[in-house]
C-alpha cells in the first residue's frame, strides 16, 4: 500500500504487485477472447435467422422473426451490470460458480451476442441484391446463397463489427471484474479503489488501453486484407 497522496500517488511503481498484474491481464485477455468467439458464432447465427425470416412469407417465419427479434431487443437493452446479477443463477447452473472469469462468460455472451446479431443482420441486408439474384438464377439453394454470397461478401463488415463488439466486451469484463469475475477490472477495483493505490489504477488503465489498441489494429488489418472492393 502506498502512503503518497496527490498526483505523485500515480507513480509509486514499487507498490505494484507485477505478478498479480500479469495474471489479472491474462484473465481479462482470455475472458474477452473466449466470449468474443462465442459472441461471433451466436451473433452470426441469430443475425442469419433475423435476415432469412425477415421478408419471407408464411406464419412460421413471422413468428420466429418476432420471437428472436424480441429476445435480441430485450437483452440488448438491459444494462450490463444488472444483467450480470440477473444471470448469476444461470452462471451457477452452467459453470458451477458465481465468481471468477468463467462465471462472467454467460453474461458477457448474452449481452454482446444480440448486439452483434443486429449488426450482422444489417450487413447481410447491405449485400447487393442483384448478386444474390444472380446466384439464385444459377440454381443455388438458400444455404448456397448463405455460404457463397452472404458470408463472403459481408466478411469485411463482419470483421469490423466483431472488432467493435470485442472492444465493448473488454469494457464489460472490467465491469464484471468489479463484482468478482477477476481480471484487471477486479484488481483495479480492489487494489486501486478500495485500497487507494492509484498506481495500480493507472497501470491497469494503460494495459487495458494497449489491449484495445491491439484489438483495433488487428481488426483493421483483417478488414483491409479481406476487402477486395477497392484496390
Amino acid at each position, binding site marked *: 500500500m502506498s502512503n503518497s497522496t496527490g498526483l505523485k500517488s500515480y507513480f509509486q511503481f514499487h507498490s505494484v504487485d507485477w505478478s498479480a498484474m500479469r495474471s489479472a491481464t491474462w484473465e481479462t485477455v482470455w475472458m474477452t477472447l473466449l466470449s468474443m468467439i462465442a459472441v461471433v458464432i451466436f451473433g452470426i447465427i441469430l443475425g442469419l435467422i433475423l435476415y432469412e425470416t425477415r421478408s419471407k412469407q408464411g406464419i412460421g417465419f413471422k413468428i420466429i422473426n418476432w420471437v428472436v427479434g424480441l429476445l435480441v431487443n430485450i437483452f440488448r437493452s438491459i444494462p450490463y451490470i444488472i444483467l450480470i446479477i440477473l444471470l448469476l443463477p444461470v452462471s451457477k447452473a452452467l459453470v458451477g460458480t458465481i465468481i471468477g472469469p468463467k462465471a462472467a462468460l454467460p453474461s458477457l455472451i448474452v449481452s454482446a451476442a444480440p448486439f452483434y446479431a443486429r449488426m450482422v443482420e444489417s450487413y447481410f441486408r447491405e449485400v*447487393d441484391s*442483384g*448478386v444474390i*439474384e*444472380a*446466384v*439464385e*438464377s*444459377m*440454381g*443455388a*439453394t438458400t444455404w*448456397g446463397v448463405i455460404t*457463397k*454470397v452472404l458470408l*463472403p*461478401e459481408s*466478411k469485411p463488415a463482419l470483421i469490423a463489427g466483431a472488432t467493435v463488439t470485442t472492444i465493448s466486451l473488454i469494457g464489460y469484463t472490467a465491469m464484471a471484474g468489479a463484482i468478482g469475475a477477476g481480471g484487471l477490472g477486479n484488481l483495479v477495483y480492489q487494489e486501486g479503489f478500495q485500497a487507494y493505490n492509484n498506481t495500480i489504477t493507472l497501470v491497469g488503465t494503460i494495459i487495458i488501453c494497449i489491449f484495445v489498441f491491439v484489438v483495433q489494429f488487428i481488426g483493421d488489418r483483417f478488414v483491409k486484407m*479481406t476487402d*477486395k*472492393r*477497392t*484496390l
Partner: protein
Amino acid sequence: MIRFKDVSKQYSTKDGGLTAVNDVNIEINDGEIFGIVGYSGAGKSTLVRMLDGLEAPSTGEIDIDGTDVAKLSGSALRKQRQKIGMIFQHFNLLWSRTVIDNVALPLEIAKVPKNKRLQRAESLIKLVGLEGREHSYPSELSGGQKQRVGIARALANEPTILISDEATSALDPDTTNEVLELLLKINKEMNLTILLITHEMHAIAKTCDKVAVMDSGQVVESGTVFEVFRHPQQQVTKNFVSEEFTTQKGDTTMTLEELVKKYPEGQLVRLIFHGPQAELPIVSDVIKRYPDLTISIISGAIHQTQEGALGSLDLQFIGDESKINDALGYLKTMRVGTEVIHHE
C-alpha cells in the same frame, strides 16, 4: 424452343393492381438471337425473370423445350435454372472472388468436382478473351472486362439459353460493340439461344434475328429485325427505329421534332433502302426527273443487320405539292420505303 403463351403478370400495390406483363405470346426458336426492346417499365425484365422462374406468371404458360417453368419448384426449378445463363446490366459479380472463382461459381453450385471446375473456367476465360486476368478481382477490371467475366460465368453450366438483361446498357459504345460481337460469336460457336433485353435499338440491329417491341406490358410488334426496321407499324417502334437512324457516332441525336423545327419548309421524307436498291443512283434519278423540285439531303445512315444492309436517308423536298407526290410515287415504284415525316 421457348414459348410464352398468354403470359400475364399482375402485382398488387398500395394503389391497386399493376399489370407488368399483359397477355404476351412469343415463340423463340433454338439457336436464334431474339431481341426484346422497350423503354424502361415496359415489362421486359419481368418477362425474363419469369423465364428463369425468379417470378411466377399470374396467368399463362412459359414453356422451355416442353417444360412449363411456372409449374416447377424446389430442386426441379434449380436444375432448370442451371440450363439458363444470365448476364446483367451491373454484372452482378462477387467482388470477394477472383475472375476464375466467379466463373467457377455456377459449377460449384452444380457440385462439379474441383479440377473439372477449374479446367472449364480456364477455357471459358480464354473464350471471352481474358487470359492472364484469372486471378484479378472484379474491382481491378474495366466495365467491358467485367461483362466478359459475366458472360463466361453464364456459360459455365453449358446452358442452352442465354439471357442478356440490359447487359450493354452500362457500357460505352465501343465496349458495347465488343460485347455484342462476343455474343454473336458465342451464338454461332455454341448454337446458343440468346434472349437480348435492351432499350437500345442499336444492339438489336447488330445482333438479333428477330425482335419483339414491348410497350406497357404488351408486345406491340414483332418480326424479323429487317422487317421491323423497314416497316415499323407502331409509334413506339417508329421512335426506336428513328432513334437508331438519327443517332450517329460523334453526332448529337436529333429527334424528329428537332428535324422538323430545323427544316420547316416543304416535306420532310425518310427513305429506307435495303439490299440492291442501296447500290442504285436513285436520288440523282429523282433530281433529274423532277427538275422543279429542290431536294436537300439532311441526314443519312447505313446499318448492318444480320440480314444485310439497311440505309436511311432524310430528304427535304421543296416545290409543288403534286410534283412532290409524283416524286414519292416514283420512289415507291423503285421499291424504296418512303415515310413523310413532316408535311408543311
